């Protein structure tokens, strides 16, 4: 093996760069669509596909935050109630004084950041396993919302801005939600691939000790990652509340496992250090499509759960397997 001389340290070809797992995930998406079209041709219609992408956008925003945390080698189980906090607090703030509708969205995101920072401090500085800290923060967030709403369903309506973000379609009929996800996604992709922060995230997920000894402030990076995850979960909640015109109790619960599944099905390793954003996008679309097809086929809930679990298992067995101990 000789060392390279010429500047053929040129960027690797497109095929080399595309993550195999992401490709597999996209392939599964196509398979699902084709399978669904056997049931009903409307599965391939642009209206249906666009609708799916819109619904996927909400999950996509949450999964983006989850991905960053998973890349670090951690997990964020506080997503369900941080989503609820985002939705409820921004709806409530909308009615707060004359400036309400202006500040409510940043306020909702800010609440998410605050909870994310608690997670981050617990994981990075107190070295408590993330599974436990985020579980506890989830419980605290739930407790806070129960007190805030008095145990009833939240009555505050979503502000017009929230509704616009979630349901508007000003640009050639492309849903705003999708555009929002696109912007968030682009930002996340850029962050992970082209910044020192992103490089540090991958390094920490691979080997935190080596990253620390190489001069990275691993604790700060972890803190920021959890803050981002909290912000994105809250933002997801804001979009959801905008979509439904108001928040609801336990509105974030159905999003936790799909978010984790999306990231993992997209090829990211649950242990950290490996994964691309493109893969997560594929995973999100895959999961959304799966849930949608199952519900359109009017399969009862029991069958849906079983099918959902089996499909995820099947895909993981295809490309999510670990290495053998013995080579």
């Amino acid at each position, binding site marked *: 093996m000789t060392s390279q001389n010429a500047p053929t340290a040129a960027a690797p070809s497109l095929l080399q760069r595309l993550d195999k797992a992401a490709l597999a995930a996209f392939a599964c998406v196509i398979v699902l669509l084709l399978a669904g079209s056997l049931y009903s041709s409307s599965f391939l219609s642009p209206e249906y596909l666009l609708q799916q992408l819109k619904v996927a956008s909400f999950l996509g925003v949450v999964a983006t935050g989850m991905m960053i945390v998973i890349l670090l080698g951690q*997990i964020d*189980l506080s997503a369900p109630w941080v989503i609820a906090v985002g939705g409820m607090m921004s709806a409530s703030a909308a009615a707060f004084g004359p400036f309400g509708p202006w500040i409510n969205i940043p306020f909702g995101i800010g609440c998410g950041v605050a909870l994310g920072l608690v997670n981050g401090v*617990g994981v990075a500085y*107190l*070295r*408590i*396993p993330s*599974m*436990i*800290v985020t*579980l*506890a*923060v*989830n*419980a*605290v*967030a*739930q*407790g*806070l919302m*129960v*007190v805030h709403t*008095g*145990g009833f369903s939240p009555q505050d309506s979503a502000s017009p801005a929230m509704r616009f973000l979630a349901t508007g379609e000003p640009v050639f009929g492309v849903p705003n939600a999708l555009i929002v996800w696109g912007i968030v996604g682009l930002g996340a992709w850029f962050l992970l691939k082209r910044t020192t922060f992103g490089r540090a995230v991958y390094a920490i997920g691979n080997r*935190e*000790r080596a990253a*620390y*000894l190489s001069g990275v402030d*691993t604790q700060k990076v972890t803190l920021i990652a959890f803050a981002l995850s909290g912000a994105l979960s809250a933002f997801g909640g804001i979009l959801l509340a905008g979509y439904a015109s108001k928040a609801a109790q336990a509105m974030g*619960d159905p999003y936790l*496992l799909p978010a*984790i*599944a999306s990231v*993992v099905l997209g090829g990211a*390793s*649950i*242990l950290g250090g490996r994964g691309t954003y493109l893969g997560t996008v594929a995973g999100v679309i895959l999961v959304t499509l799966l849930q949608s097809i199952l519900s359109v086929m009017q399969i*009862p*809930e*029991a*069958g*849906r*759960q*079983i*099918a*959902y*679990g*089996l499909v*995820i*298992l099947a895909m*993981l*067995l295809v490309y*999510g*397997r*670990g*290495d*053998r*101990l*013995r080579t």
Partner: protein
Amino acid sequence: MRDWRFWLAENRGTLVALAIFLVMFTIYVSNHPAGFTANVVNTAANKGVLLALVAMAQTMVVLTSGIDLSVGTIFVLCNCVASHLLLVSPLGTIFGLLVTLAVGALCGAINGVLVIFGRLQPIVATIATGAVYYGLALWLRPDPGVADDFNGDFCDLFTGKLAFGVPASLVALTGVVLIVWAPFSRSALGRAAYAVGSSELSAYMSGAPVKAAKFSVYVLAGLLAGIGGLYLTFLTQSGEASSANASSYTLFSIASVVLGGVSLFGGSGSAIGAIFGALAFRAIGDLLFVFNIEPLWQPLFQGVVLLASVSIGAARLVGVRNRLELFG
């Protein structure tokens, strides 16, 4: 006599959990309006034993540095199975018991196969299998209910009081510990499970039965969750595919395991510690009732106490002199 010092160090997590539980329980009982009566203790025991069983199940898998997010759904599934099969005739009862336990063990075995031979990460594999098991539970019991000739009397045996006011559930729990945990933890297979959690590669290189150990913990986890489901049937005398129960028992089992001094990284801790962790966790919930805290504030209180109790472990960081030790 240095041996007792080693024993102390080996069992530190469990002893701390026991201490926490005793403190919680004392506060609870001394402030309970009805006082330290057999009924109060029995009710607390019944609820505590449920979580304790699921926490034991979780411990098995956590020992090998895995995690089982399907324990709650196996728990619910077995509850639904038992609600159909625990019939009045003696043969029916035995059959019902055996089938329920077998279902639990089978679910665990499936998890094990996926993790060992499928080489899937436990956290994602069990999320997926959890969905499947829950679907099965829903199929068995779309609405809560119970078989027509259900053996209610048999159930009462396990949820009432025995001589001297000792709750039957505690006796049963002790029985489970003696029959399932004690032999396993002292066997070569059990020790191999600890080895796998501590360092799987070293365990393999040393010739420890890695695959057998991993498989056994998943099967035992399923079995224990199944026993828990059985017990839920004894208590409620009905079957319900409650997703709220499934997810809360799963998550609370993780909290119990941590409180019980079992390391989430694997290799150390004991199911007995997890039992105390579960009982302590339950006691926290009951404390709220006892202190008449408004129901509105209970979830918040519970969450804060959980957060505080897991942060206590961070106190050990104060003495850390070499920052490298912080990073695994």
